[in-house]
């Protein structure tokens, strides 16, 4: 599918960048004029994935998180969040609601459930010792004042 516009940023896995990544998403998506609700959904999903890379992926190491946002044809938003951290052993289990490996840090085990329900598509690729990539897509509703 054709990409109309895209942005890629890479930032160190420090927690202030959770907020920064949400601000980048909001700024980049101004061109498609999403509804308040659509934007809130995407910002929340991105926040979950970026937080996971910082909290879990780079728990015992340092590194960068890559965020890529694309605007595809038909007002579809594509988002990829990638880390080169510890990776996930059992992806299926990790994606189960309420499953967490960090309950003592007051984690609820709901990050993937939020991504799943707030986006149209969610795909997770991961390999132990190599890192994790989360790809999400969401199609925005029609917008009258859309620029051609």
């Amino acid at each position, binding site marked *: 599918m054709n990409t109309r516009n895209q942005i890629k940023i890479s930032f160190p896995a420090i927690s202030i960048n959770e907020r920064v990544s949400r601000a980048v998403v909001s700024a980049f998506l101004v061109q498609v004029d999403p509804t308040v609700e659509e934007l809130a959904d995407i910002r*929340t999903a991105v*926040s979950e994935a970026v937080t996971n890379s910082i909290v879990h992926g780079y728990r015992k190491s340092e590194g960068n998180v890559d965020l890529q946002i694309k605007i595809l044809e038909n007002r579809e938003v594509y988002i990829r969040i990638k880390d080169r951290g510890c990776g996930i052993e059992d992806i299926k289990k990790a994606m189960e609601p309420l499953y967490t490996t960090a309950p003592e840090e007051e984690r609820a085990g709901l990050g993937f459930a939020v991504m799943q329900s707030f986006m149209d598509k969610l795909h997770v690729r991961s390999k132990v010792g190599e890192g994790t990539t989360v790809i999400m897509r969401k199609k925005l509703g029609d917008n009258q004042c859309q620029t051609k």
Partner: protein
Amino acid sequence: MAVKIYTAQEGLIAVLDGEIDHHCAQDLREKIDQAIMENQPELLILDFQQVTFMDSSGIGLIMGRYKQMCTYSGNVIIRNPPLHIKRVMKLSGIERIAKIETIKI
């Protein structure tokens, strides 16, 4: 993210303001727990009216404060969350441990 905490007749009230994420959760946790310990209230009211963003880190924060309140046999109420934040709350089933209430001020 800022939090103002005060005691009222109905209980201990924590007014949250801004974006709740993993980055600020630790600080919020410490401030609210300190106030719970000092006041040992029967009711903790988390006022979400001014919260502009929350992800699952906020759910962890509410669950953790619920556990703290349980040690004093107290309850937790979530007050006036904006719509998109309420959706995160509904998804998590947090209502089983903390009632969500909407009141006019």
